[in-house]
């Protein structure tokens, strides 16, 4: 077996960390966009849309991400669409994040007092205008903290993409652990890598929570 210097190990882990970061950003941004759509469907007046959104959220929140990834990557192949692991991983993580973000945001919309809808309606605003000008700005303030908080879950969630061949942080770690037979050192460093990505996000969520609470109190 080959000897790895600590420097080489760190280099490879940094590479894996980079992929983890890319995947997380992709999932967060695209997941946010799709999640917004699902949110609108979830609170729509049209019942079929609501049922669809509920089913969507139930499915993606109720099955392990690992199985979702597996189905997308290998399932699309069965349907004759050969996609790269990147596309499959990005696509699955997007669908997964969208479900959670939509549900988080729904809670925030519902936390806005019903009277606000009624007041807006009495000003002859259309439903879209009520949402756009009255409800969403208020819901946004509740939404910032849990949304940033969920981004931590996305970062950690990217770990399962190794099942379809992505060499992100966890996968790089397990390959190295096998090659060096030093699982504790390597997995310690992997844990530290996630902590470096996630802790700033958690602090940010905390900071925003306090700041927005102070604003709300005024």
């Amino acid at each position, binding site marked *: 077996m080959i000897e790895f210097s600590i420097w080489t190990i760190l280099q490879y882990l940094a590479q894996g960390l980079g992929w983890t970061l890319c995947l997380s950003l992709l999932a967060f941004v695209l997941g946010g966009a799709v999640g917004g759509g699902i949110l609108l469907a979830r609170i729509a007046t049209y019942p079929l849309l609501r049922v669809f959104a509920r089913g969507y959220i139930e499915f993606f929140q109720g099955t392990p991400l690992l*199985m979702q990834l597996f189905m997308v990557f290998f399932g699309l192949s069965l349907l004759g669409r050969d996609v790269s692991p990147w596309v499959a991983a990005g696509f699955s993580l997007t669908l997964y994040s969208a479900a959670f973000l939509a549900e988080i945001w729904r*809670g925030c919309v519902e936390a806005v007092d019903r009277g606000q809808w009624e007041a807006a309606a009495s000003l002859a605003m259309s439903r879209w205008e009520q949402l756009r000008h009255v409800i969403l700005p208020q819901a946004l303030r509740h939404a910032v903290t849990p949304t940033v908080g969920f981004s931590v879950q996305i970062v950690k969630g990217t*770990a399962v993409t190794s099942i379809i061949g992505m060499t992100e942080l966890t996968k790089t770690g397990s390959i190295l652990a096998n090659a060096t037979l030093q699982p504790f050192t390597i*997995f310690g460093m992997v844990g530290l890598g996630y902590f470096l990505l996630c802790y700033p996000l*958690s602090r940010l969520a905390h900071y925003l929570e306090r700041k927005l609470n102070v604003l709300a109190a005024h």
Partner: protein
Amino acid sequence: MAYQFDFSGIWEYRAELAAGVVHTLALTGVGTVFGLLVGVVGGAVRGWRVEPYNRLCGLYVELIRNTPFLVQLFFIFFGLPALGVHLNEWVAAALAMIINLGAYTTEIVRAGVQATPRGQMEAGLSLAMSRRQVFWHVVLPPALGRVWPALCSQIVIVMLGSSVCSQISAEELTFAASYIQSRNFRAFETYIVTAVLYLLLAIVLRHLLNRLGARLTNRDVAKP
């Protein structure tokens, strides 16, 4: 691709799947009950800033929430023996789940406790209740009611997250799936069946928790 789906092979392994479902539920049950206990205590400490435990709890919460569950599990199962602590795979898995859910619950309960109006607490104290009594009877019930939906989501997440316990040879539902597909190579069929089982578990669990939550809130309303 000319892949032929064949689910008949899965039926032979129904005993393994059933055992997997039972074990996943058992792990989730133990993890939930004790995780909630840890979280309620931690949340009270955090919410009321009981020093020095407040800082310790803060460290615990940040450490657990910002690292993957798998890393925590590996540390308990493979790392602790170096310190002379040998836990078998079930104890290690349950402990990891308790620690994990405990950290999230601590934060959720803290938020609920902090949202309790100060006046309610003062009213309790003025009735000559101890701080502990105030917490159990005045602060906690409405705080739990407030954060119950968030707790339910977290419990379902922990149930699905228990799937990585298969990596330390705990024979829960994902273990059953991996075991079956390593024998018959029918990964698609196995994973589809397993995903459906997880979905059913999640739906039933959420339903039960919602009913429990409604009961908790009702009891509080009924109390004078």
